[in-house]
């Protein structure tokens, strides 16, 4: 009984990992279009990390890096061929235009910081 319970619990934890990290997503923050949208770069995450923006229109993201570790020093939009250096404590505006509806990932150089622009 004990053995079954622990094995089942283990499998449940694995299912939870799959669901939480791959299948479920945090709610996208809608971009109103009124001024830049601020993204805090700290503690391994972009906040907010999922941002809904209109497709085909330029969007300005204002990165505010608080994490001094070198991991956070760049923001890369691979599919949009845009990158920016993020000095600590100095807001940096990055303007991108997602060409068509879809999801556009932005990451740090090591892909530990991860965010998504959801273009609609």
């Amino acid at each position, binding site marked *: 009984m004990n*053995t079954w319970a622990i094995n089942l619990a283990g499998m449940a934890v694995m299912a939870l990992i799959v669901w939480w990290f*791959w299948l479920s*997503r945090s709610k996208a923050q809608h971009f109103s279009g009124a001024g830049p949208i601020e993204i805090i770069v700290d*503690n391994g995450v972009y906040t907010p990390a999922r941002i809904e923006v209109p497709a085909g229109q330029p969007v300005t993201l204002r990165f505010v890096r608080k994490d*001094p570790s*070198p991991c956070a020093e760049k923001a890369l939009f691979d599919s949009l061929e845009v*990158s920016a250096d993020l000095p600590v404590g100095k807001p940096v505006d990055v303007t991108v235009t997602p060409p068509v509806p879809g999801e556009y990932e932005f990451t740090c150089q090591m*892909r530990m910081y991860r965010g998504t622009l959801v273009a609609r």
Partner: protein
Amino acid sequence: MSVSPPENTTRLSISGMTCAGCVSTVENALKNVPGVTESAVNFAEHTATVRGSVDAKVLVAAITASGYSAAELRGAEDESEKEAAELSYYRSLLRKFIVAAVVGFPLMLAEPFGLMPMLDTDSGRVFWLVIGAVTLGVLVYAGGHFFRGAWKSFRAHNANMDTLIALGTGAAWVYSMLVVLFPDMVPSLARHAYFEAAAVIIALINLGQALEMRARGKTSEAIKRLIGLQPKTARVVRDGKETDIPISEVGLDETIRVRPGEKIPVDGVIIEGHSSVDESMLTGEPMPVEKKTGDDVTGGTFNKSGSFLFQAKRIGADTALARIIEMVRRAQSTKPAIGRLADRISAVFVPVVLIIAVLTFLAWFNFGPEPKLSYMLVATMTVLIIACPCALGLATPISIMVGVGKAAEYGILIRNGEALQQAGKLTTIVLDKTGTVTEGRPAVTTLVPAAGWDETKLLTVAASIEAGSEHPLAEAIVSAAQARQIKSSSASDFQAITGHGVSATVEGKKVYFGNARLMAQHNVELGNLVTRAEELAARAQTPMFLAVDGFVAGIVAVADPIKPDSKSAIARLHAIGLKVVMITGDNRATAEAVAREVGIDEVMAEVLPGDKADKVTALQQRGEIVGMVGDGINDAPALAQADVGFAIGTGTDIAIESADVALMRGSLHGVADAIAISLATVRNIKQNLFGAFVYNVLGIPVAAGALFPFTGLLLNPVIAGAAMAMSSVTVVSNANRLRWFKSGATRT
């Protein structure tokens, strides 16, 4: 979440302010810019600090409109701030390492010698309780950032290195505390505390990050060196007086004095004096260049001999040096295809490791020997600790950063990581002849007058017709006429016939001047001059026929000297394994003579400028991966069509903006260097990726206990922690080896 944009602070340098009244004019100009909330002008420093959500360019435009000059204060200042922030973070990591090490290492060393009290006595439990509290302090102080990061990224449905460290060390501490507080819950064989492991792992990972940071600092040395080229002050001439001012205050069109031994502060044009200027730091060209009135000078280069005055034409972010720095920075952030697999893996890496950790836990629970609980904990913790997504994520970008920077030191600007990777895959290199293999400065070498003509008459008509042309060959003819003090006549109805020559009316006579095809088109009989032309072409001279009123008047032969290092550079391209093709609009015999001289494999001669791209396409259709080397403007379509376009020219050229690879010096060795750097960088990336993959692919099963059934050994989590810390250090250190790259390397 509400969006509340913070106010940007922009610092500007302002030129032209001479009185306190100017201060209020500038301040008002800034305040009237929509989005500016506050502005303060410092008259003593000639700077303005502006707060608000406005682009610096808008602010500069507003100041310019009010009658002053301004530039954004950036560059070296940003770099020193960045260095200060990095140093402070490096020190904080070292402090955290020391605190965790002071607690963890003595505990770890004391245990094998039996110096620690047993857990099954009351005094022992109190001792371990105190140790637990102390290590909790260590985890909070030295490892708090890992726990905060893990929690935040968990909430964002993300998992990163922090997740693994926090879970590994957190599990060790919680388990140990459980053993101390409720020993009866744990089987007697499994009653062991792992407080020291948690502390030592935190210590080692902080140390690893500090070492990685140190090594990383070296990877951006190329950028630092470029920034270091920029002088801090300029000696401007204002109201007849020479004054040293900070470079950020130099305005457009200001007159600047440069003395021998000084660096040229910004880009401009010499208006008085002459000198020789060492441009090697920017272009890699070793020989100093003679500069006189009217010549361009580039900021960051070194004035060797004379003193001169020049007018500033590009300042701040517009200078060639600033554009080069920006381009190198941008390129350093890009990745080639080779890194995409690693990217895809690192995106799913941590959740996969978490699943492996759970599987490890279950495997030891189901099949492990007693004390199962200890084995389960140790193996699971070791899996979490040894897996390092950083090494994988760093493998590509760190090598690109060093490779692109190294190329910049050689005067090679690489647009992006893709171009860097592609350059190493080339099988054929196509060289434009004029200005690439040859100097691009032709001179008249032979005059062959036809019957009834003499050399002076021939050159007079030729110079008259070419006076209206901007072609390099025309310049050679006009110069030759000037050298002989020949006065040319005026020409009318001038027409350039692309790929053939020119036509015009000189002294009422219809004149054609160009190649044999042009003569054939107009039914001009060439007679025995054809043989003479062939002889000249075989000696690498370009013969041009002159026809007046339908009759040939003679040949003017022009030769473009081969660059002294073309032959050795082409030998290097051959050594790398490339086929070298030359493409030219010149006649076949001349082109083949040049090709023989320098050792080119294939010649595409008499190609019209518009057809060069088609020739590149034809080569690609034959399965070749083609690199095209041209001057970046005339050859633009062919450069764009090639798999990698190499623009050969100067740092101030538009080519910087347009090519995949821009070579700031004229030598073909730059192409060989670029390819060698590309090969070395790709090799370095592969080593990094191999190391990171092998490390994780081998490390994780060993940590999970794959060797245990055969050897009875289980990896110590502390060793796993040390290995994790060292993995990123190893990748960064390997990338740093690229800094010692020397040109001359060949494909392996």
